[in-house]
């Protein structure tokens, strides 16, 4: 086997971003990678590090960017002793797209197209966060028409269902239940068909825009949605039979990747990870936005904080979302789907030929974009992976001065060292799958 040195090109060395060998790693950094920052006191960590095998016994390997089970281009550097994972360090940035810099170059109307490509498993939530923040800056967040708010709730809950179906499919395949991948995609395709019927696109919809939604619901949307809702429950029971009652699946997930409530809160983890530790925190319930205060649904909370809890939470959140969508079907009011404020919403196509003023508005909104008074605002929504926040600083022009998206997966990735310590590599795969990171949202 030729030695590595005589490679024609130099190794892809990310320098200090990589995991340093045990000897030369700083104490605090070692603490971080051991996942012991909170779990143990200084003394315990000191004697733990002693009892760990010395440097030449362990092996640092790459669970690298191109790996079937790292859900995109996440690179994990693992220090292994045989099969047991001792230290973990996520190295990210392999999908950095400079979206926040591009966001500063696009007008507020073009913003959702840029933002919707961050969390590509549930694109509508990015658009919703961006639109809510822009509306708060414009000061029109109270007078968004009722129908627009209900349509937003309907579409985001449908998107939560398809995102959780994606989780179930990849979680099943990562842990070995490959037929789960096939079933998960079969049902996700039906969900995407409903989204495509309304927004016109399967993904990256650019449907929720500042001021309301892009288009009204097509006629016959009730039967499309009802058709999907009536079909889903018996396939959810199929998943329950396939996964929960299967000893192998339970053995692979129960007791793996345990995290306590204090750790989750201290690390800033939100969403199913926080709820799996028993903290009943769901933004839709605690700090309601849109019309969630008029909806009756439960927050699903786990008990042990392990991978099995997170799977169970997401499986039952699909049922909760279906309950919400059924309530929205009854309460959907009539009215216009976009705010009628001339400055924000372009006039309907027909009126442009008649009135000069509509033509001017149309022209100004689409070329230069509407102006947003200066200030800064932060709004957050409950995305399937946690709290998705959008922080915009505007300087009065028609382009955001600074647009920052708080990606829940970016913060949830920091719980990996805590969950993987001491487990096998197979458990590491189950833990990554239960955190369900979307790399577009992590690397932005």
């Amino acid at each position, binding site marked *: 086997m030729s030695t590595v040195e005589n490679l024609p*090109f130099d190794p*892809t060395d*990310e320098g200090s971003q990589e995991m340093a060998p045990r000897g030369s790693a700083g104490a605090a950094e070692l603490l971080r990678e051991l996942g012991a920052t909170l779990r143990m006191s200084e003394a315990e960590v000191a004697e733990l590090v002693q009892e760990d095998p010395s440097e030449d016994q362990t092996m640092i390997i790459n669970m*690298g*960017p*191109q*790996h*079937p089970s790292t859900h*995109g*281009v996440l690179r994990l550097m693992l220090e292994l002793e045989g099969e047991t994972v001792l230290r973990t360090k996520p190295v990210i*940035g*392999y*999908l*950095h*797209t*400079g*979206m926040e*810099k*591009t966001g500063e170059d696009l007008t507020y109307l073009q913003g959702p*197209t*840029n933002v919707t*490509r961050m969390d*590509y*498993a549930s694109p509508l939530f990015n658009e919703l966060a961006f639109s809510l923040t822009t509306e708060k800056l414009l000061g029109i967040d109270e007078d968004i028409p009722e129908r627009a708010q209900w349509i937003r709730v309907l579409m985001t809950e449908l998107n939560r269902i398809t995102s959780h179906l*994606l989780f179930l499919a990849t979680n099943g395949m990562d842990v070995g239940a490959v037929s789960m*991948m*096939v079933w998960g*995609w*079969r049902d*996700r*395709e039906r969900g*995407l068909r409903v989204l495509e019927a309304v927004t016109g696109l*399967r*993904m*990256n919809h650019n449907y929720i825009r500042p001021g309301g939604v892009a288009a009204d619901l097509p006629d016959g949307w009730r039967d499309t949605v009802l058709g999907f809702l009536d079909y889903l429950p018996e396939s959810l029971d199929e998943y329950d039979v396939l996964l929960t009652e299967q000893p192998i699946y339970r053995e692979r997930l129960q007791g793996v990747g345990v995290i306590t409530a204090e750790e989750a809160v201290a690390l800033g983890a939100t969403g199913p990870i926080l709820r799996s530790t028993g903290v009943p925190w769901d933004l839709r319930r605690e700090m309601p936005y849109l019309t969630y205060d008029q909806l009756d649904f439960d927050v699903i909370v786990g008990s042990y904080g392990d991978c099995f809890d997170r799977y169970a939470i997401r499986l039952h959140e699909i049922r909760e979302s279906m309950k919400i969508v059924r309530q929205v079907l009854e309460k959907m009011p009539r009215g216009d789907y976009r705010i009628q404020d001339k400055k924000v919403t372009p006039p309907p196509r027909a009126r442009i030929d008649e009135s000069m003023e509509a033509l001017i508005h149309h022209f100004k909104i689409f070329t230069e974009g509407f102006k947003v008074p200066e200030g800064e605002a932060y709004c957050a929504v409950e995305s399937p992976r946690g709290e998705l926040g959008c922080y915009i600083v505007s300087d009065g022009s028609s382009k955001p001065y600074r647009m920052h998206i708080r990606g829940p997966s970016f913060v949830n990735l920091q719980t990996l060292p805590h969950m993987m310590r001491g487990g096998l590599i197979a458990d590491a795969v189950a833990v990554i799958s239960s955190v369900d990171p979307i*790399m*577009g949202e992590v*690397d932005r």
Partner: protein
Amino acid sequence: MAWDLSKGLEGLEHNFLTGTLEEFVKWARRMSVMPATFGLACCAIEMMGAGGPHYDLARFGMETFRASPRQADLMIVAGRVSQKMAPVLRQIYDQMMEPKWVISMGVCASTGGMFNNYALVQGVDQVVPVDAYAPGCPPGPETLIHAINTLHEKIRDGHLTRRPGEGLGLHVEQKDGQRSDQPVTLTTAGSR
């Protein structure tokens, strides 16, 4: 009929006897292309959708996405390639066995798409030679399957077995800013 074994089929001098053998080999290669999972961003979800039960890449003999480049001969670059990912992409492409093909799926992989900024490689053909482009953001599974079919046609019509390094030997001289009505000069560089 000297046959320089190291180049395999390509080294064979194309004549009446070996024609059918070459057709058979090309047909075999076309019918069992093995894609390597190179899912980067949103297009990866659509690629998985194409592999899923509804659109079913298995109809083209491609349902098994091989994880390691050793066992794959088609790399579908599904998603935007960032500057940090480019050397990794090149390393994976180098580690794939000949004959190998590349489909650039999505506008971000093909031309940098809507992210014309510092972070992305504007078009993956600056890193690896691309054989088929699938337009769209993300291209639907049907578009990806259409791109795969065009690649299959390219494999079958034998254009690719002369692939390693030489290409067709055509050199396109295009002065920047040249108006379309002026003819593009083509010179066949080197003997064919």
